[in-house]
């Protein structure tokens, strides 16, 4: 991983983010709905709406607003929320911890669940069928519905877990499970394919031929190796996790980035939506890079570079 590699990675990331920022800015101009009307409300007359629009700076020409905004972004300033009248980066920073905790928990959970499923599938042919059904199910059921069903059973019916907020103990469990399920399916699919290949591969054969017990070969030798293709997938999935958080946070009433995003969209808080998109856009190459780094850590061959 030479300097050139890092530089080209950075250049690509900057290009992607610039493209994301620019396209989101112009795309959002096209969506119907007027932010000034939302803030002014039902009773305001048109003069008031116009004044509100001016105070938002929306009366100025588009290109001027764009250049102002994009140069702000390059300095790390994302502008001021129209509706909440606070700097966008503050708003995002406030919500980020909840969403990161939720997504992190869900990521861990999906890793454990997914690997568990893959192990069961590889151990038994009956397990394969079961795992495949579980995987399909995790994909097939709409996330908000799964979230509601979980809520209904574990909070309403059984009263085991809190039904809203983040204060109570275990309040992250249900949202994280709802969020983790589709990811667990992806992890399981990837790990299952990777394990299947490894099980048929020479290393497994060699270890077995030397008399190392089957279970040990599986758990100690192969499982860590099976993780390698899972990690990049997990990085991409982490992006989807943040997206899934919109629905899950809404259902479980968590004060995270997902809720912020939804309310920003509903209220046409353009600077806030743009800011969130830029942050997501930043997270994407970051996650990919960290997955590469982790793979390097887990698989020495890659760490030592492309020399061989």
């Amino acid at each position: 991983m030479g300097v050139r590699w890092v530089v080209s990675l950075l250049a690509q990331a900057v290009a992607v983010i610039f493209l994301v920022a620019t396209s989101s800015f112009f795309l959002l101009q096209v969506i119907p709905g007027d932010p000034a009307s939302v803030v002014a409300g039902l009773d305001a007359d048109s003069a008031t709406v116009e004044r509100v629009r001016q105070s938002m700076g929306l009366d100025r020409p588009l290109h001027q607003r764009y250049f102002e905004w994009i140069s702000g972004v390059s300095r790390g300033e994302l502008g001021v929320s129209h509706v909440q009248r606070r700097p966008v980066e503050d708003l995002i920073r406030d919500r980020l911890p909840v969403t990161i905790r939720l997504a992190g928990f869900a990521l861990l959970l999906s890793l454990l669940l997914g690997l568990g499923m893959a192990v069961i599938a590889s151990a038994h042919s009956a397990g394969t069928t079961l795992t495949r059904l579980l995987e399909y199910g995790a994909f097939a059921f709409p996330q908000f519905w799964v979230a509601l069903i979980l809520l209904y059973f574990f909070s309403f019916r059984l009263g085991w877990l809190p039904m809203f907020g983040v204060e109570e103990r275990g309040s992250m469990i249900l949202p994280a499970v709802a969020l983790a399920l589709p990811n667990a399916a992806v992890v399981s699919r990837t790990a299952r394919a990777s394990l299947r290949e490894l099980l048929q591969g020479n290393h497994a054969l060699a270890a077995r031929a030397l008399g190392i017990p089957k279970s040990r070969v599986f758990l100690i030798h192969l499982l860590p190796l099976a993780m390698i293709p899972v990690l990049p997938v997990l990085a991409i999935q982490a992006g989807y996790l943040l997206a899934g958080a919109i629905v899950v946070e809404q259902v479980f009433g968590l004060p995270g980035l997902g809720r912020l995003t939804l309310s920003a969209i509903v209220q046409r808080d353009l600077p806030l939506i743009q800011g969130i998109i830029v942050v997501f856009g930043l997270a994407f190459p970051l996650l990919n890079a960290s997955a590469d780094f982790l793979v390097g850590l887990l698989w020495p061959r890659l760490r030592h570079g492309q020399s061989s």
Partner: protein
Amino acid sequence: MSDLRRREGGGGAILALTVLVALGGAALLADRIVPDPLTQNLGAMLLAPFTQGHLLGTDHLGRDVLSRLLHGARSSLIVSIGSAGLAALIGTTLGMVSAVDRRGVLDRALQIGNDAILAFPTILLAITVAMVLRPGRYQVTMTLAIVFSPVLYRVSRVEARRVIQKEFYQVSRMLGTGRFMRIVLHLLPNVLPQVLVQTASLAAIAIGTEAALSFLGLGTQPPHPSWGLMLSDARRYLVQAPMLSIFPGLAAAILAFCFQFLSDYLAERFHAVE
């Protein structure tokens, strides 16, 4: 060896196809076999299944759940198959263009554009596009097609590049086969299998995403039914009428199952052929 693999999941695939065809048929003939899904009966709201001639009961406006389910199949099928198919068309075309681009400028540009779409949070992109296009079932189809196409772009680009490096492709190039013919004769047939696998898988994912968009009010427009909309309506009645969510949820799951089965089956087969 290959016959062994083909048997694996083959039964499932046949079953999946049968269910799909049956669903499609039911959706097409829904007008003939079930009552009108819009007719309300405010005197018979939230009926349990098997009461007063309503096989699956009625919803919160006294509409027959079975008719709504079958009519909703139309939306769900249009959205899932339509969006995955469109995405396949867009993604594969661009992916192959990217792969055969000799100077690499177009390839680079397409890749960055593709990364940019991927960097958008999926649901946010879907919401934004859906808002620009205005809500509706065909608009959702378009939206999801745009959201999904990067996946197929990636797959087809990787596959196409793999094929291009193979000897037979280079040979056909030396033999002077025209560029277009080369793409049609050699590239497309070899890229298509993987594209098909992914398309079927995306069709499954589309069902859940359509439901999420309906949940946010951007999908099929009421009072016309779609499974996502039914689920979204039913969520308020979880306590009083849990069956209202169970039926569309199951229907969506079964449809997604079918597409996944097909996808996996295709993957197995193509894997075996290789």
